[in-house]
């Protein structure tokens, strides 16, 4: 099509094509306007990371302070711990929480009874609609040494009750497990969609060639969802430093700061609550830059290893 256009109008091929598909381009406008207003204009607000932002003076009238807030942030004695906790939890999420929905989708895909499959799927994605506050309450009801179900079992077997929520050693496991329980079913939907997109003719051909379920899985299903997996993995890596504030905040207490205090919770506690907006913006900017660099590296690695990338 493009080539035909080129032949007929060597002058302005792009303009011609835009005119020709003007309805499609018109439909693009709301999307672009949305991105511009809600994603690009707020970017300018990031300058307050370099200013002594005063809400009464406004963004432009506040004084420039250069990298003051970055220095302050990097000089926080526990800065390395914040970064380490963030990276560690993110790493565990990638290792344990990321594959969970893929495995679930693959298992569901092998189910042949449609009614059973649907009901299982529905039950598994219901927790997605619960807020973290409620899940925090459920966690308490399970793990509290006074009323918790798990601790009642432990006591019934004659062991000492465990303060799960007051022990730094359990914190990351609780975060990862609750995260998997809440989001696994929901995240599986996208992989189920990818699986549904694989042409049934491939399976039929494989069957005729004598491939069993395992071989079909290995040579058709896996390659079929790999692009979706790589795409989501790259996006996850781009968000390495964004762990989901609520989840961690709900379970965090001063004793578990040691393993659970992350960039987001610190910036909430020391920044937002105390009205230090420049400081929180500096932290946010730092996170964005690190996330972008990680994304670039992961994208390159992915391209050279699998040939898949997002740009």
């Amino acid at each position: 099509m493009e080539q035909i256009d080129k032949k007929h109008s060597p002058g302005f091929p792009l303009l011609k094509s835009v005119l020709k598909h003007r309805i499609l381009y018109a439909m693009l406008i709301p999307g672009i306007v949305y991105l511009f207003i809600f994603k690009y204009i707020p970017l300018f607000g990031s300058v307050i990371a370099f200013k002594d932002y005063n809400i009464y003076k406004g963004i432009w009238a506040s004084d420039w302070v250069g990298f003051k807030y970055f220095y302050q942030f990097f000089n926080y004695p526990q800065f390395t711990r914040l970064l380490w906790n963030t990276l560690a939890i993110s790493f565990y999420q990638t290792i344990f929480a990321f594959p969970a929905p893929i495995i679930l989708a693959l298992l569901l895909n092998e189910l042949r009874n449609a009614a059973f499959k649907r009901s299982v799927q529905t039950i598994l994605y219901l927790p997605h609609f619960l807020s973290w506050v409620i899940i925090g309450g459920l966690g308490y009801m399970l793990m509290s040494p006074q009323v918790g179900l798990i601790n009642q079992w432990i006591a019934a077997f004659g062991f000492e009750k465990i303060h799960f929520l007051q022990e730094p050693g359990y914190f990351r496991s609780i975060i990862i497990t609750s995260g998997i329980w809440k989001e696994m079913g929901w995240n599986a939907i996208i992989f189920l969609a990818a699986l549904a997109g694989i042409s049934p003719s491939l399976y039929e051909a494989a069957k005729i060639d004598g491939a069993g379920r395992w071989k079909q899985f290995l040579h058709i299903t896996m390659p079929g969802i790999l692009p979706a997996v790589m795409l989501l993995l790259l996006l996850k890596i781009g968000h390495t430093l964004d762990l989901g504030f609520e989840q961690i905040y709900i379970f965090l207490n001063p004793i578990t700061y040691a393993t659970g205090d992350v960039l987001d919770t610190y910036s909430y506690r020391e920044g937002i609550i105390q009205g230090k907006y420049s400081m929180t913006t500096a932290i946010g900017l730092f996170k964005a830059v690190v996330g972008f660099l990680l994304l670039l590296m992961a994208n390159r690695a992915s391209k050279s290893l699998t040939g898949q990338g997002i740009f």
Partner: protein
Amino acid sequence: MRQTKLIAIVCAILVFALVASACSSNGSNTQTPTNAPEQTKDNVSGQATDAPAAPVKIKMVVSDHSVQAPGADDPRIKYLEEKTNTDLDIEFLAHGTYLDQLKLQFASGEFPDVYQSWSGPELDLIEGGKILALNDLIDQYGPNLKANIPQAAWDAVTVKGEILAIPQPALTQSGQVMFIRKDWLNKLNLQVPTTSDELLEVLRAFRDGDPNGNGEPDEIPFSMRENISWGDNIFGMWGVGTAWTEYYHNDEVILGNIHPNILKPLEYINALWNEKLIDSEFLTNDRVRWESKIRAGFVGVWGHAPALVTQWNTDLRASIADQNPEVIVIPTPRGTGYDGPLGTRWSPINKTFIVTKDAENPEAIIRYFDWLMSEEGQIFAELGIEGDTFFTATSDGRITFDAKKAEGIRWLDTVVRVHGYNPEMTRIKLGDDEMFAYLDEAYTIANTEGFVNEAVGMPPIADERNMTTMFREAAAKVLIGHAPLSDYEKFMADWRAQGGDDLIKERTAWYNENRK
């Protein structure tokens, strides 16, 4: 199915619209009390006669405290004007954006005669010469104010010896008191503890004596809440506060968190932990969990706001009626080896009224506030006008308050009132002498104990150098035995080294300049 969904959505939108319009009407409400025709009339008469008897015009800006503001011809405003010989022009601004709107007015050069705030005036207004010092005026025209406002409240609005506002004293100077289950004490034949050691004995008895009578060792002798909060009375046995409490100690202004006296209470709570006398979940208790443990009758001692003693008694009588619960407030026991003031920090003021230099007749303004502080004025501010909202029985002179009309005069209490705790008025309003006895006892204790918090009246701390995080973590570790007490001393030194010293220098410099 689809229809009900639709109805639900429509309802949601309606509710939202209602709330939004209510909010906006609140905002646009601001001019209502200004009574234009009356104002001009009085103005004319004022100019014509110019006699001292003519009512004095006072322009006042206040927050509506999110309470329905009075209408322009509200009889209480008329009454107030008559009694104080003034012509009041009170502008009620929406509470949520009050200080911002006020700042905008000031920025455009509009200064009322009086404006309301919750602290002394801001530094730039003082330095800009906009604020009138009231020392002499109060001496001359404010005998009731002098008699009824405690020194701590004056101190909170005094800078360099100049009184810059008329403070409404807080109902209670201390915000937290110690609650105890009196019925548990009675059941186990125990006295109210007066020292930290006696408290320890009481808590041990609560743990072992099965005071809730269910045969299970499920009592929680003492409980507090997440982030080491609502335990201030334990720290208060040695006179330290942990949240934004500043002390002038050894020629420095320091936060209570690094005051040497804090080591004792930390050690004490750690002992409670080791003996299982404190709620094992005190680091994770949120309000709901904490309250439900108390309501379920597991907790023996806890700290809370004094005004809530009636609430606790009502709640517990409903939830564990079979135990015949009785909750009282007790004075903070004295910590061993400590002889300073006990309890929790003072927050001595509730709201303030600041007089600007634009006021033409400041004497009249002081007289206005002085009348509100008189006996007659106090009755008016709490109960309204006789025959309208309260009635005096002709036979025995007993006053009854019409609680149904209370909502209509709430603005008097929140916006106009300048006096603090008035037992008699509180009793009449409460209408329940038994509950009033609990409340009066709680208020009396909260008004007699406690200590000065130097932070009151100082500019807020702009950068606390990670104190919140570092304190909570260091203290929590010591409290549950994850670290020895020496680690806390290390935190005190570390915090100072990583920037805390600069904060101390800033605060001390301000103190030396303005308070010494």
